């Protein structure tokens, strides 16, 4: 890391020289020079948390069926279709969620907001003094 000039002066040196009598380094206060510390009127999109172990039981059933039938696929047709249905259902729900996320339609009385919804609200009512 490369310290800035101000930091370097304030922490390690005083009046242009380091103390040599064993005392702690003197701290000279300095004014903050940097960007304005305030939140923006925008929220970054973050992906929602996945549900835990989707279609896990179906997968396990299929694997055990395969082992029992000596990897004959025809015996496990039922399990296969079950797993397929489950996967399709899961993918459909994800698509629906993403569509809602993209559109950002506001629902009255909702406690949790998606990023698109929050952005719409922030655009309508921006923070004062930013």
């Amino acid at each position, binding site marked *: 890391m490369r310290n800035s000039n101000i930091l370097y002066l304030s922490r390690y040196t005083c009046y242009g020289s380091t103390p040599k009598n064993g005392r702690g380094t003197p701290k000279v206060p300095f004014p903050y020079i940097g960007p304005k510390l305030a939140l923006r009127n925008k929220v970054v999109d973050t992906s929602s948390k*996945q549900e835990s172990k989707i279609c896990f039981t179906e997968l396990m059933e299929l*694997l055990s069926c395969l082992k029992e039938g000596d990897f004959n*696929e025809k015996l496990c047709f039922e399990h296969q279709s079950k797993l397929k249905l489950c996967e399709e259902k899961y993918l459909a729900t994800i698509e629906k969620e993403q569509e809602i996320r993209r559109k950002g339609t506001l629902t009255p009385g909702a406690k949790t907001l998606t990023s698109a919804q929050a952005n719409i609200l922030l655009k309508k009512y921006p923070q004062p003094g930013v």
Partner: protein
Amino acid sequence: MALFKQATTFLGFSIPPHKKLTAAVKSVLSCRTAYFPAEFQKPITDQDVLKELEDSSEFENLKFQPFLPAPISLNSSVFYDEFKERFTRYVMKGGQKKLARELLEKTFYEIKKIQLKKYYEAETDSERNEIECNPLVILKNAIENCTPMLTVKKVSRGGSVYQVPVPVQEKKAEYLSIKWMLEAARDKGSRVHLPIKLSKELIDAHNGEGRVIKKKQDLHKLCEANRAYAHFRWS
């Protein structure tokens, strides 16, 4: 050069060709390679679908519907099949589609020869009925028999890589089975022609035996061996 002339005439003024293209000309040129608007539908070539449409009330609306230009390979021939078309593209190497089509035609010929020989050698009628002589049906059935249900996905946890069993999507599964089939067909001596080997492999897979079926089962066995790591897919 012709494209350049068209673009310049469209703009209403001529630019000497030795000069560099301006932004305006570039924008016109990019229109040529642009995507079609969303309202453009895919062309319908299936005769049965077209007949059904003519009878239904939807046909009136389609009269003013813009359609995308049909690709060269697409046609409404009796011998056209979507899956066959896709399979030829997998056989193709280096853009030589004509050669790929010819190779597939030869494999169909070989399959027909082998199956007809079996058909005439069969003694009873019940045996004869079981023998499939349509090569296209054999191709489709063989590829369907080789499609895997599960694959393994590499997931690294705690510094070591685990092979996690996951279900395969339809497109990917078909791709895998076609890839294995062609790998098996191309693994041959230099004297053997591809259609001869491919036809044998296809008939084997149609009957539920052979190298490609074994490859699929090996993958399923690998999935079964790694079933303890299945929960890594989510966590």
